[in-house]
């Protein structure tokens, strides 16, 4: 278990600043997730930690050791790529053992370690197949096996589940969380999927425009977002955000989550026209047009099915409103 400490880390590609002064401490054994919209620099930040990109300034410390200028292989990291990056010409066995064979470990040791990793990931029966003969989930497991067998201090994941279908993604989320508990290793995980972030992370780092917007546990970010950006990014459907003056508040931005709005006819704060209804089964997401505010999304019980064009009254739950200065 190792810590990862980033201090004032910057990265520019030519005139474009992609990472602008990131300070971050990832504790040993933590599952840390970087989230943010496309182009926010989350993948670049991961690649800086991996050593695949050179930092323009600042330092990276892994396990207390400055690795800012170290080779990727000398940093004690392993990485799982979005498209798996398995070597197509090698069998699963050789894919997993590739790093060990490069390090010229004895054949018997390679064999033993590859088989142990395969056992842990239920890949034993696939060891002699080529990657093209595997399904998406199996390939992903091989990629994870290749990471495990190196016995790294820190695991890096770059959107590893984005190529899988929804059902498999849910299953792999659980498997990855199990793996984290079993290995107890520090893991850094990049995703743009906030469900993955919320369900897997010990700590979420929200990035925006190359800077950290907020760092905290999933629930902290959900309950007390530091900025309208974080508020809009964490939670699904996203938080309703309005100009403070438009809702009669003194703050700059006023926010209320769809699940913290209730439909009521008793002195509602707002009234809106139903524009669209999404019935998800367990609950119903209602899109309303509210005069002067525009679109407002409400999450209601699954048995609610208001007709399009009808008028509904809405009130916020007390204590769940967010006011951003």
């Amino acid at each position, binding site marked *: 278990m190792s810590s990862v400490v980033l201090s004032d880390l910057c990265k520019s590609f030519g005139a474009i600043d992609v990472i602008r002064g990131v300070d971050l401490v990832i504790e040993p054994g933590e599952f840390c997730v970087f989230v943010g919209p496309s182009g926010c620099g989350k993948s670049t930040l991961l690649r800086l930690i991996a050593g695949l990109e050179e930092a323009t300034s600042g330092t990276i410390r892994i396990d207390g050791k400055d690795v800012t200028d170290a080779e990727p*292989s000398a940093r004690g*990291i392993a990485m799982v*790529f*979005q*498209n798996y990056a398995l070597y*197509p010409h090698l069998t699963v066995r050789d894919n997993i053992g*590739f*790093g060990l064979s*490069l390090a010229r470990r004895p054949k018997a040791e390679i064999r033993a370690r590859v088989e142990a990793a395969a056992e842990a990931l239920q890949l034993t029966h696939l060891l002699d197949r080529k990657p093209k003969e595997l399904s998406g989930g199996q390939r992903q497991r091989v990629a994870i096996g290749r990471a495990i067998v190196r016995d790294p201090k820190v695991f890096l994941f770059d959107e590893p589940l984005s190529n899988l279908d929804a059902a498999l993604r849910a299953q792999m989320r659980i498997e990855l969380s199990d793996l984290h508990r079993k290995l107890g290793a520090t893991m850094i995980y990049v995703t743009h999927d906030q469900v993955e972030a919320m369900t897997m992370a010990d700590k979420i780092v929200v990035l925006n425009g190359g800077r950290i917007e907020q760092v905290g546990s999933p629930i902290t970010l959900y309950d007390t977002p530091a900025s309208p950006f974080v508020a809009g990014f964490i939670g699904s459907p996203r938080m309703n955000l309005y100009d403070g003056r438009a809702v009669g508040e003194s703050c700059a931005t006023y926010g209320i989550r769809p699940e913290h709005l209730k439909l009521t006819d008793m002195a509602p704060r707002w009234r809106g026209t139903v524009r669209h209804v999404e019935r998800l089964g367990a609950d119903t997401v209602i899109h309303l047009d509210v005069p002067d505010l525009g679109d407002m999304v409400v999450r209601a019980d699954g048995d609610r099915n208001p007709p399009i064009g009808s008028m509904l009254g809405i009130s916020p739950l007390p204590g769940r409103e967010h006011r951003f200065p």
Partner: protein
Amino acid sequence: MIFILPFVYILLMAVKTKQEAALFLFAWPSEWRAWENLVEVVQTRNYMLLLAYFNSTVITLGAVTLLVIFGAMVGYVLQRRRSPWNRVVYVFLLIGLMVPPAVVPTIWVLQNLGLFKTIHGMILIQVAYGLSFAVLLYRSFIASIPRALDEAAIIDGARPWQVFFRVILPLLKPVTVTLIVVQSVAIFNDFTNPLYYLPGRENVTVQLTLFNFQSQFQSQYNLLFMNILLVTIPPLLVFVFCNRQIVAGMTSGGVKG
């Protein structure tokens, strides 16, 4: 028919007697002299054909090996490394493809380097003529190999040459087979370049042995056609055995991880 008929004609001519061959008829031979002609062709000028086979094989093997290695390496660096020099190199590659080689200045360069009339000089000439094509072929193929493979290998601890030889080069197999077949047939069959750059009895290549049976005063067409037949066989074998791989190499798209 366009390919088979001439071949049948060569076959028929090669087994005729000298007198019959001189008639140039597309006719069945009255007397079969396949073995005698064969022996005579091989023995002519102190077994010159065997020496020619040896020389041509050495030139072909040497040139194709260098073409594959340098073509793949240059193509890899050009595709993967972003550098302002890429544009310059690219222009030179296109020049290499478009501008026809000038023979006399090339001979002058070879003479000054001490490579004129040498087998390795000839190998370098063939490499120079074929390299642009090889680099462009490899470069476009390497573009279809995800960069994440390189990065995964680097994280696994591979040095740059290990990334190339252990990950990239094996994935280039389809295009390499195509290049080997196309270039080895072209180089083995090359007539003009050995004629210009490789004069001398001891440097003879297979295509040049055809001169043995053609002269101002006397031509032995039966032997000439037997010689043609013998010279055509190696490239033909390459095509027959590699046919499937060539098509696979030309049509295969990307590499799927």
